[in-house]
């Protein structure tokens, strides 16, 4: 057997090679501090990015109002269809199940206190004010938020994202604004729909558990749940929808042109938008803590 000269060199190198140098891990007392600092900087970076998009939206909307005939109306209606109409089934299914479960658990408790009629208050307030908007937001973040991030990410990979500004077309108007508008329109409508279905599911369950007829339940609703709660739910829907769209677009634009970044970015987008929605919900709860809760 003969060795070619380059192979000789290779084996010579092998022989002379030292054992791989393992860097001994020294205790670094500042490591946690550094890690926290890095996370804080990363958060700040994302926050600035999202604020940037958020600030761009009213400017682009102004442009839209000034030249309504040039608007990306087709993109907006397509997005509303995709994130709203196509989500009717899943939001109804989840809403109904939550309504039934909540009603079942509460009626067990209420019956032991003989406070059967309060099922209307618990379900009405809980669903219209909190659960309806929340369920919708989580589902939309999972369905449409991930889709938006992935779409923008793929456009980055295929360089479609670069082609727009090069042609002198601002991509915020074509790509971001339609999605923000679409979700801000679609999510509040979904909130109404989900709350309605959840209430029907809850009423049905109450009928089985407590023998309270559906008509009795529905007639009791207006007194138990002031109308302002409905508006609060719809308002939350608008805010949550816009937030999900902004977060999803932000992470989509940040995706690097490789497949791994695409997967990681989509995951991060969904997790962040759900977190942001929960934070926004807490803010709503603090601001409107004495609005629409009648204590009679």
């Amino acid at each position, binding site marked *: 057997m003969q060795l070619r000269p380059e192979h000789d060199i290779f084996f010579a190198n092998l022989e002379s090679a030292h054992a791989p140098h393992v860097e001994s891990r020294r205790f670094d007392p500042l490591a946690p501090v550094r890690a926290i600092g890095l996370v804080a900087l990363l958060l700040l970076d994302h926050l600035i990015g999202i604020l940037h998009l958020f600030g761009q939206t009213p400017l682009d909307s102004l442009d839209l109002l000034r030249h309504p005939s*040039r608007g990306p109306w087709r993109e907006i209606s397509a997005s509303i269809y995709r994130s709203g109409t196509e989500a009717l089934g899943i939001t109804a299914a989840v809403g109904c199940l939550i309504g039934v479960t909540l009603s079942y658990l509460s009626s067990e408790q209420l019956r032991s206190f003989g406070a059967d009629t309060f099922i209307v208050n618990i379900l009405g307030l809980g669903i219209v004010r909190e659960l309806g908007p929340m369920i919708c937001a989580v589902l939309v973040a999972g369905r449409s938020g991930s889709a938006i991030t992935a779409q923008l990410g793929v456009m980055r990979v*295929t*360089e*479609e994202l670069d*082609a727009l*500004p090069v*042609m*002198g*077309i601002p991509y915020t108007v074509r790509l971001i604004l339609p999605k923000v508008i679409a979700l801000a329109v679609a999510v509040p409508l979904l909130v109404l729909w989900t709350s309605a279905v959840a209430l029907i599911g809850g009423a049905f369950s109450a009928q089985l558990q407590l023998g309270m007829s559906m008509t009795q339940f529905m007639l009791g609703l207006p007194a138990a749940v002031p109308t302002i709660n409905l508006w609060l739910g719809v308002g939350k829907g608008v805010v949550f929808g816009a937030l999900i769209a902004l977060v999803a677009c932000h992470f989509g634009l940040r995706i690097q042109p490789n497949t791994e970044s695409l997967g990681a970015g989509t995951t991060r987008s969904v997790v962040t938008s759900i977190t942001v929605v929960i934070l926004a919900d807490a803010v709503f709860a603090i601001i409107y803590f004495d609005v629409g809760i009648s204590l009679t």
Partner: protein
Amino acid sequence: MSQDEPDVQVVPGGQGGKRSEGGQHKPGGQGGHEGDPVIEVSGLWTVFGDNVVHRDLELTVMPGEVVSLVGGSGSGKTTLMRQILGLEHPHRGSIKVFGIPLLGSHPLLLRKIRRRWGVLSQEGALYSALPVFENIVLPLRELRAFDEGFIHDMVMLKLDMVDIERRHAWKMPADLSGGMIKRIALARALVLEPELLFLDEPTAGLDPDRSESFVKLIQSL
């Protein structure tokens, strides 16, 4: 693994340099003043980690000129084009297009420059969500100065120019071959009658016949 400077060569157009793979051809506008450079790149440095891609690069393109950049794969041709297009920023040096510096100019001014050039990127970068017709129409629609009839005629004219049959106009880019996508992307780059045309590896991925006619087409512009 730093690369040496002469990796990217600037070859005056019209000669053999044109057909070499990996060229960018930039026919300047006919109407420009003689003497005002269309593109001015000076003292350009691009560094990725320890990989020096451009070392003090100078490039001036005059109106009416066709310039080819020739260099091996990975020598920084695409990067240079992206920098001139304003998609990436060099580490040092200045780039002026139509006499306007890319860095520090008002966005509206930059948008105006962008309507005066046409770009064919390496992969074509057609919008996969839009059919061929809508893709070519994109830059026209943005100007919004034309009626639908004119737009239709214009698109068909450009499709003829790049030798794409009209029946393909309503297909989606995913249903077309790489070479066809490239030619459609050229049609999109030409639709605004640009004064400045950037072509990144225009003949890569084309069959020899088409590649020949592609070069003829570019010469005829």
